[in-house]
């Protein structure tokens, strides 16, 4: 039983580090920022998720009591990764007027980064 868990933990560590490496490789090689944004938000998040699951399994088997620490970090990273990606994309759009001109236009409005909010905008609750 301990042997099986060792295989699972080792496999998850390898998968996790592979995705971390692919994410950073994408960050280094993709041609422009919007494309580079894809690599860290997806690959890196899954990589760290796999490593943290490996850690959960390892410590749960090693100590005999469930280890819940890692679940917190995993959830935190999965919730925050899209938020930071969204903020980075907004900052990128704001700093590049040529990109703003190429964006598709939404009905009856503009994108929030470059347009002031309308009078009847829904208030944050």
């Amino acid at each position: 039983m301990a042997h099986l868990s060792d295989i699972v933990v080792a496999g998850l560590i390898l998968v996790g580090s592979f995705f971390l490496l692919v994410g950073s490789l994408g960050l280094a090689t993709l041609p422009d920022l919007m494309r580079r944004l894809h690599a860290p938000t997806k690959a890196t998040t899954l990589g760290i998720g796999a490593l943290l699951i490996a850690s959960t399994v390892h410590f749960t088997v090693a100590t005999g009591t469930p280890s819940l620490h890692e679940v917190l970090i995993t959830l935190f990273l999965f919730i925050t990764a899209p938020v930071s990606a969204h903020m980075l994309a907004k900052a990128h759009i704001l700093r590049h007027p040529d990109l703003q001109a190429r964006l598709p236009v939404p009905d009856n409005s503009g994108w929030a980064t470059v347009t002031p909010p309308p009078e009847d905008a829904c208030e944050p609750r």
Partner: protein
Amino acid sequence: MIETACMVAFAAISVAALLNLWRLAVGPDVVDRILALDTLVVNAIALVVVTGIWWATAVYFEAALLFAMVGFLSTVAFCKYLLRGNVIE
């Protein structure tokens, strides 16, 4: 077996961190550098977690959690500064 996997993971994550550092150095824009820093923080968390497995100790988890929080907050603060010219309005 886990030791071997940890060694491979250390190597892979170190290469990943070097790639992030390269992106941090060349830019070209400030947003690229923020993205590189954000990814670097995630790789640092990964190194901390693998170190925890390697030494079979749970004392590093607070460090990983704090890294995650500070990394997220600093990314958002940088972006907020670029977007609004101010961090706390």
